């Protein structure tokens, strides 16, 4: 049998999904309509912490167009704390206090925005009108708003845990105390990292339709994890998996905010649809999104680095607090990622890291693009900058001296990663990435020639260069079903959802090469549990890696079936066959040909006997589960100019060199990095959720919580270095989060440089760095 060609894999193929998206034809969740559709609105707590004394819905029931009102008391056995989505990893002596949310708050509300009741009405306007008529008597309770005070033993308790401890985890390798004793220099600093909000342009939303006669529930949801939602709803609603179909249609961005959380809305809307025997729709509005969707924010690190005189890292110690929000359905994914990310691409012989996750009266904290890695990368990169300064070594040189050498892979880090396996970097080649980055940004000439000239002209310019690694492509598994139709078109179905990652194209590229068809002859279905019901979902930069490899395996099996059937048909050996242009040819008789569509018909005979063990059709289902994740890497560099008067920062040049293994589609990879960097810039510069002492969000509009515009994001210059992954046959590594992860430390380093750290300026130890905050720091720094 001849090998498959690589016509599409690795090429910048234009996207299959663009036409419907460009013409307005693509179906998003709010586009779904049924003639019997009713609309849901949620009443949300105005208090960050309060006891619910009484809820009176009498007046609401009589409102125009109201069909039903539900509170926790109406839910019977459905009212229960939700299952834990992600359990804690099996780390010795780990403490984990599971406190998950309920479908509606009953006795106590624990964050502003927590749902208390829902109204079903004929349209959304009437449903929202009716919310105003619900009377809730709240008895306000003391609020645990700010992270560090909430960790005190006498702090107001969000749940029944003193000191609001959600988790305590310590991971150690080597002997840090010994390293510290042997060190020439030990640097200790406190780092603050406020994170922000994912803010996809499409908010969350869900449509649920209960068919009473068929006893069947259909759900359309803006979700990253349709298969998990399917499994969760079946379990919680007492339905067979055959009684539910969950579809993630076109989804307008996710970035973590649309992962399964057992969000109250994603449970209540299907439940109420069954209760009413109807079709219900709830679309989150932007104001709700600010209070009702997961956030990722708030860590305080007390970190230490022990280095030798020549700048070698001897050890790291980090003790940090992680703001968990009010509930912890997503386990420890975010802080474990932070803990692992501190190690970076460097040789760290000794590491002692412990953290406490703390309950606060704020929305749940769960992954947002980067998922805690930003915090860890900020800590190590800033420590290296400070160490370099103290030792009188160039900040790039100290990184060179500590990068893991290319012959050290696979590199074991001696601690556990979020996927429950040892943190291991499968492959990488870090030094060339750094050198290439320096070359493109022109580091040496900037520092030696340009910066002094610009400074002499009174311009406040600086440069920043940082490195990072990112664990991607984690298990457990994904699957794919591939089928050749009689039309000759190929259908690929996988369980993951899509929120803009170009799966309709990248998976089609893999299939087209193996099955000898054009890329636009492959139809890809993602996120429809009737088409494919198994899998974990789209997160952790894993879709292309894990589902992509499953598509590859399923297509390889179908390819074998095609060739075997054609060999039978032509009465020859399959070795003599090739598949091209949707047809199988024999190598010695090019005129002899049969299309794969015709073979699909032959593979599904209507009469006659088939051999025992025969499977009908040209179809195969395969699963791919990597032993462990694969590690992508890269370096970012930027040159900034700071306006001393306004403290506005302008990014003059931005360079990314990265290694995501073998790219399936470089155009898509570059797009992912552009978008990641843009989110990183927002994160580094001005995205901050502001709370007052009472736990009220102060900036819950897009006019107050700013996200980057076309005026803020510079042109990003990119280069790729390819070190194929050893963890999967295609050699691919994830790239979804890479762009967002290392922006903050590069920004801090460049701004610090611009503001004259070498001449005694202030150290920057926190993120984000709004112009206000930079002004305060430049004036002498109030923490």
């Amino acid at each position, binding site marked *: 049998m001849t090998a498959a060609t690589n016509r599409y894999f690795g090429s910048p193929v234009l996207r299959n999904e663009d036409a419907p998206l*460009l013409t*307005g034809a693509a179906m998003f969740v*709010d586009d779904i309509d049924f003639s019997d559709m009713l609309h849901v609105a949620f009443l949300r707590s105005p208090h960050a912490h309060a006891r619910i004394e009484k809820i009176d819905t009498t007046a609401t029931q009589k409102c125009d167009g109201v069909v039903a009102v539900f509170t926790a008391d109406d839910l019977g056995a459905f009212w229960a704390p939700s299952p834990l989505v992600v359990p804690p990893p099996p780390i010795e002596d780990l403490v984990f206090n599971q406190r998950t949310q309920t479908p509606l708050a009953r006795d106590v509300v624990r964050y502003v925005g927590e749902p208390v009741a829902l109204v079903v009405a004929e349209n959304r306007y009437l449903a929202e009108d009716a919310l105003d008529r619900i009377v809730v008597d709240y008895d306000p309770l003391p609020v645990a708003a700010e992270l560090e005070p909430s960790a005190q033993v006498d702090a107001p308790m969000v749940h029944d845990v003193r000191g609001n401890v959600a988790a305590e985890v310590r991971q150690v390798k080597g002997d840090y105390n010994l390293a510290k004793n042997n060190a020439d220099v030990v640097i200790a600093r406190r780092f603050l990292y406020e994170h922000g909000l994912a*803010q996809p*342009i499409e908010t969350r939303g869900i449509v649920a339709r209960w068919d009473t006669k068929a006893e069947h529930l259909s759900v359309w949801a803006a979700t990253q994890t349709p298969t998990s939602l399917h499994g969760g709803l079946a379990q919680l609603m007492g339905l067979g998996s055959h009684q539910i179909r969950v579809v993630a249609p076109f989804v307008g961005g996710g970035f973590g905010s649309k992962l399964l959380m057992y969000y109250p809305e994603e449970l209540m809307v299907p439940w109420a649809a069954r209760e009413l025997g109807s079709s219900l729709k709830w679309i989150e509005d932007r104001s709700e999104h600010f209070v009702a969707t997961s956030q990722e924010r708030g860590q305080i690190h007390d970190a230490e680095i022990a280095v030798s005189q020549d700048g070698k890292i001897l050890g790291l110690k980090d003790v940090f607090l992680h703001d968990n929000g009010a509930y912890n359905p997503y386990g420890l994914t975010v802080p474990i990622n932070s803990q692992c990310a501190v190690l970076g691409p460097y040789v760290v012989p000794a590491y002692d890291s412990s953290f406490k996750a703390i309950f606060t009266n704020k929305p749940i904290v769960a992954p947002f693009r980067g998922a805690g890695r930003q915090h860890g990368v900020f800590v190590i990169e800033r420590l290296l900058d400070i160490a370099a300064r103290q030792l009188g070594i160039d900040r790039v040189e100290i990184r060179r001296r500590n990068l893991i050498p290319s012959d050290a892979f696979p590199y074991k880090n001696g601690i556990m990663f979020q996927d429950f396996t040892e943190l291991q970097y499968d492959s990488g080649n870090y030094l060339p990435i750094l050198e290439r980055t320096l070359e493109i940004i022109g580091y040496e000439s900037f520092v030696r020639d340009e910066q002094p000239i610009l400074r002499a002209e009174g311009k406040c310019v600086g440069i920043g260069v940082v490195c990072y690694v990112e664990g991607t492509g984690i298990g457990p598994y994904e699957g794919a079903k591939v089928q050749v139709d009689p039309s000759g078109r190929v259908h690929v179905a996988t369980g993951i959802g899509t929120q803009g990652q170009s799966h309709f194209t990248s998976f089609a590229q893999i299939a087209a090469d193996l099955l000898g068809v054009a890329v636009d002859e492959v139809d890809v279905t993602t996120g429809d549990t009737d088409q494919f019901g198994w899998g974990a979902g789209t997160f952790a930069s894993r879709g292309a890696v894990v589902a992509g490899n499953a598509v590859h395996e399923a297509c390889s099996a179908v390819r074998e079936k095609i060739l075997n059937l054609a060999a039978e048909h032509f009465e020859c050996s399959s070795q003599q066959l090739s598949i091209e242009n949707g047809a199988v040819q024999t190598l010695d008789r090019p005129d002899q040909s049969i299309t794969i569509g015709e073979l699909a018909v032959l593979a599904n005979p209507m009469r006659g006997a088939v051999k025992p063990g025969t499977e009908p059709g040209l179809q195969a289902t395969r699963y791919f589960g990597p032993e462990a994740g694969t590690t992508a890497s890269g370096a970012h560099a930027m040159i900034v100019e700071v306006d001393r008067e306004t403290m506005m920062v302008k990014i003059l040049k931005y360079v990314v060199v990265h290694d995501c293994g073998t790219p399936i589609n470089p155009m898509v990879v570059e797009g992912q990095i552009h978008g*990641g960097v843009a989110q990183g810039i927002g994160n580094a510069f001005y995205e901050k959720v502001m709370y007052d002492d009472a736990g009220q969000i102060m900036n819950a509009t897009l006019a107050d919580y700013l*996200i980057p515009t076309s005026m803020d994001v510079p042109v990003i210059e990119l280069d790729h270095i390819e070190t194929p992954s050893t963890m999967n046959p295609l050699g691919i590594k994830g790239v979804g989060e890479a762009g967002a992860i290392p922006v903050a430390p590069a920004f801090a380093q460049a701004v610090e440089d611009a503001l004259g750290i070498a001449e005694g300026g202030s150290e920057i130890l926190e993120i984000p760095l709004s112009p206000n905050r930079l002004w305060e720091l430049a004036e002498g720094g109030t923490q």
Partner: protein
Amino acid sequence: MLEELVTVSTVVNGKHYRRIVEPRLLLSDFIRHDLGLTGTHVGCEHGVCGACTILVDEKPVRACLMFAPQADGHAIETIEGLAEENGELHPLQEAFRDKHGLQCGFCTPGILMTMKAFIAQHPAATEGEIREALSGNLCRCTGYQNIVEAVKLAVSRIGGSS
């Protein structure tokens, strides 16, 4: 409390519509749910994100900031009217595909409508002008780089053909 209903007559993408609506109905909801033209997307409902941008009498407008009755007697263009009736894409749509100017595609209709009006006014727009014109539309996926590239390409193609 239901308010007095009012009649709205508009021409959308060249087609006449007449509907009786509540005065408080947002134009965005009218277009999406009363007329079934769901290509206009709603992102924030407070006039910041630009996803719901449509053209009213050829000028870009945020549909979430207008009430449906305010559109009475006006001509509206939405994303559904951008391509030719035979399905041939508008040069802007083509350029967005060629330059990978969209990822999730949710903000795209609003951006395309904003840019259609912008290019009509600025047939030789520079990159700086394009970036400024785009700054009222938020995109969370692309980092804008490929959107800018796409608009530049569309400007060159449209300019070249006129």
